[in-house]
Structures are given as C-alpha cells and as structure tokens.
C-alpha cells in the first residue's frame, strides 16, 4: 500500500509521522516498510540518520533521472525491514518537470517488496504533492493541533485530494487525519473538537501528544523507539500503527 503523508503547511508532523509510524509498523506489526523522501529538504532522511547535506548515499533524484536503479537508493535502517530512499536538494529540480512515469518506476517494483510505502511530501501544493498523490492508494494528513492556521491547510489538502480523485486517481482515499503536537491548551482542545465534529470517520482516535523526545529524535536520526522507547511519543506512534492496521485490514 502506497501512502502519501501530506498537508499544505510546514511543521505539522509529516516527517515525524512518516519516520515513526513506519518504524512502529516494522517493530510491532512485523511488516516491511519503505519511506520514500520526496521533499528536497530531506527531513525524513534525516530522521533515519541520513543527512540531506551529505553525499555519502545515493538519493532519489538519481533514480528519477535514470542514473541508477531504484534498489540502489534503498537503505535499510539498522539492518531491519525498515528502509529509506533519501532525498537531497537536487530533488528540487523535479518540482518543475513531469515525473509521474519515473516515480511510478520506483513505486511499482517497490510495492511488490514492501507492505507499506510512505511518501513524505513538501508542505506545499506543487508537482511533488500532485505526482505522489496521483500514484498513492491513500493519504495521511497530520495536523498541528496547536495551530488554528492548520485548519485552512487541512481544508486545502482535502480539496487537493478530492481534485486528484476526480481527475486522475479514483482509488485514492484519506486513510486518516492525525492530530499532532497535542497539548492541554485551549486552542488544541478547540482544534481537536472541531476535527472530531467535521471528520468523525477520518480523525484517528490516537493523538500524537506534544513530546520533546519526538523533536529531539528526528534531528538526531533515530526513530523514537530507538531514541526513547518509554516516551509518550513512542507510545502514541505505537497505538497509531495499531489503528492504521485496523483501518487497512
């Protein structure tokens, strides 16, 4: 199953979710998961310890431009069933050119090997977002519950998904809306209650609480289950993984 992690706003928990949800699915559900970093910022790559500033690894732009084969840019995290296809700034060039076929050339063979492919996307409506969504089975939308601006981004993302469903990809569905960075402020309560009312089916029961360990782990290149397995962050992403499994089966 190919799942895009997307919302047209930055800093809401996209990369954090791509990294830690995949790690949880591998660890607790014994699945094979690939994270495809399709954001030139390379935050998800960083979450697995691959710096987007280093050139030690092959990155996705090399696959898209046909220089190397897809499997040459797939890196296993800690020799586990959790893999990453990293991104660097060169990927930005594909923001202004059609690359559906090339991306399909990665996703099709990989979906034979992996149970889940998560695509981490940039925080804007653009070529990366539309191309990934046109090739995905589902989307997960992480919302920063502490931000009232995120509501607009969520509505905007829902429209984009609907447009893509109608225009090019009728199999695309929203797997779930995920409340992230949840704390006990009044604004968070209002954002969450609003989402509960507006999207009762789509909102995940699991909420990712605001947790400093999550913020630390992403920059330090370790999924939360390695960095701080007893943290709230680890607990929340574990229960998210179980909820996701419930929804796809």
């Amino acid at each position: 199953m190919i799942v895009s992690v997307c919302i047209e706003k930055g800093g809401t928990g996209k990369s954090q979710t791509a990294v830690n949800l995949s790690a949880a699915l591998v660890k607790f559900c014994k699945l094979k998961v690939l994270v495809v970093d399709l954001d030139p910022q390379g935050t998800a790559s960083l979450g697995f310890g691959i710096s987007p500033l280093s050139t030690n690894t092959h990155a996705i732009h090399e696959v898209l431009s046909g220089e190397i084969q897809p499997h040459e840019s797939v890196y296993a995290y800690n020799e586990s069933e959790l893999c990453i296809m990293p991104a660097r700034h060169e990927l930005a060039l594909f923001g202004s050119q059609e690359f559906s076929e090339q991306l399909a050339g990665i996703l099709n063979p990989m979906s034979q090997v992996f149970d889940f492919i998560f695509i981490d996307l940039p925080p804007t409506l653009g070529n990366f977002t539309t191309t990934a969504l046109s090739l995905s089975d589902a989307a997960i939308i992480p919302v920063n519950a502490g931000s009232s601006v995120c509501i607009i981004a969520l509505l905007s993302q829902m429209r984009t998904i609907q447009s893509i469903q109608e225009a090019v990809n009728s199999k695309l569905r929203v797997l779930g809306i995920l409340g992230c960075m949840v704390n006990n402020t009044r604004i968070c309560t209002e954002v969450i209650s609003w989402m509960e009312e507006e999207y009762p089916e789509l909102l995940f029961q699991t909420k990712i609480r605001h947790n400093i360990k999550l913020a630390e782990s992403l920059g330090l290149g370790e999924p939360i289950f390695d960095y701080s397995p007893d943290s709230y962050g680890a607990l929340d992403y574990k229960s998210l993984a179980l909820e996701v499994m419930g929804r796809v089966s």
Partner: protein
Amino acid sequence: MDLLRIVVKKRAEVAAGTEGAEDRESLSRFSSRVSKLRGEGPMSSSAEPEVTLEVVSINIQDIEVPSNYARQVTGDVSSLAASIKTYGIQQPIKVVKIKGSKKYRLVFGRRRLEAAQVAGFEAVPCIVELVTREDRMQILALAENMHRSPLSPLEQGQTFEELKKGGVTLHDIASNLEISMEKIKELVELLELPEAVRKEVAKNPEQFSIAILKLLRSTYQKSQELGKTLFNAVLAGNVTNPKEAQTFLATHK
C-alpha cells in the same frame, strides 16, 4: 507540469461547487469555537508561558477614566501626590488600549493617576492589559480596588450590578473575589435606595455603614416619609450606629 495544472484547475471547480460552501460553513464553525478564546489572555490556565508584562510610560492626557469605574470618589490625594513627587510612582497603573484610537482606558489606579496629575507629572508608568473582555476587566479593577482603601458599599453594589448586567453570574463574582453570595446580594440591594440618598451617601461614605444603609433601605420600603426622617438624622450625626437607628425608629413610628 500538466498534472499540476489539471489539479489546480480542478480545485477551482471544487471551490466553486457545493464543497466550497461546505468548507465555508466548516470554517465558520471553527471560527466560532476559536472566538470563545478571545480575551482569554495569559490569565487563563494553559501550558503557554505567561507573557512578560512590560511597563510603558503613557501620557496622562491619553488615559481616560471610564464612567463606570468602580472608585467614584478618590478622596484627598495630596499626601499620595507628595509621595509621588518625591519617590515617583512605585507601582504602575493598569490600562487597556482603546480599539481604533491612540488612547488608553484606565483599568485600575485612579488615585495614583490623579495624584500624578496633582504632582505635575506628564506621564505615568503603565502596564497595558492584554485581556480585553469587558467583564474580565471589571473584575480585575475590582479585585485590585477591593483590597485598597475600601470601596464604599454603594460603589461595590454598583459594580456588582454592572457585572450582572454584563452577564457575569453572582456565583462567578463571589468565587472570583472570595466573598459570599449573600454579601453581594445585600450590596446590590442597597441600590434600591432613592437616588438622592445615594448621591448624598457618596459624598459622605464614612457616615453610612452597611448596617445603616440596610436599615435605611428597609425603612424607605416601608415608608418614604420615615426613611427620609431617618436619613436626615444620620446625615445630621444624630444617629451613628444601628442601635441608635432602631431606637430612633421606635420613637418616630
């Protein structure tokens, strides 16, 4: 890039259709939720850090005293003025920005403001209140003033009455100020005294204790005539406490 073009065009169609209207409704439901938070500044309990209060110097001419300000009588401010002249204003007063104007409205600190004026100051140190909800502000002003030279019973009653009119419940007032509901009711009831009496009381607040005022109210309700007689006796200094008032009433039936 064709795909992006298609999606952008499609989104415009979506926006023009029923989904556009649904989104607008959805958004307005969100706005009405968030608007509840308006005015819930750093005082409300939240995990957010408190905003540091900055003291700013504001021109006295730019500060307006609202007509419903709790302390109507400032009394003699000359000694405070003298102290301010020597030491300056030790404690900033609190003001709130008037929307759409360069002026400020006083929340509390009327005596300091007047004393500063008497002392010849042009500006005073102020803290600009971030809370702008009307009822919250009156409670703030009251909370500050209750513990200063006491407000007269009628001033207190008047303020409670206004809070009530603004939709604040007696229960809220009582719990915010830690006084009993009975006491608040008692003070509000004093407003039933004739206006002329209330005006006179405001001029000489120390002559009229709560007990005397209560007695005056009940007497007025029984008989305007008798109320007036008792009021004049208190004003003249012939009746100074409830006991004397009872005796006075017994002899004037």
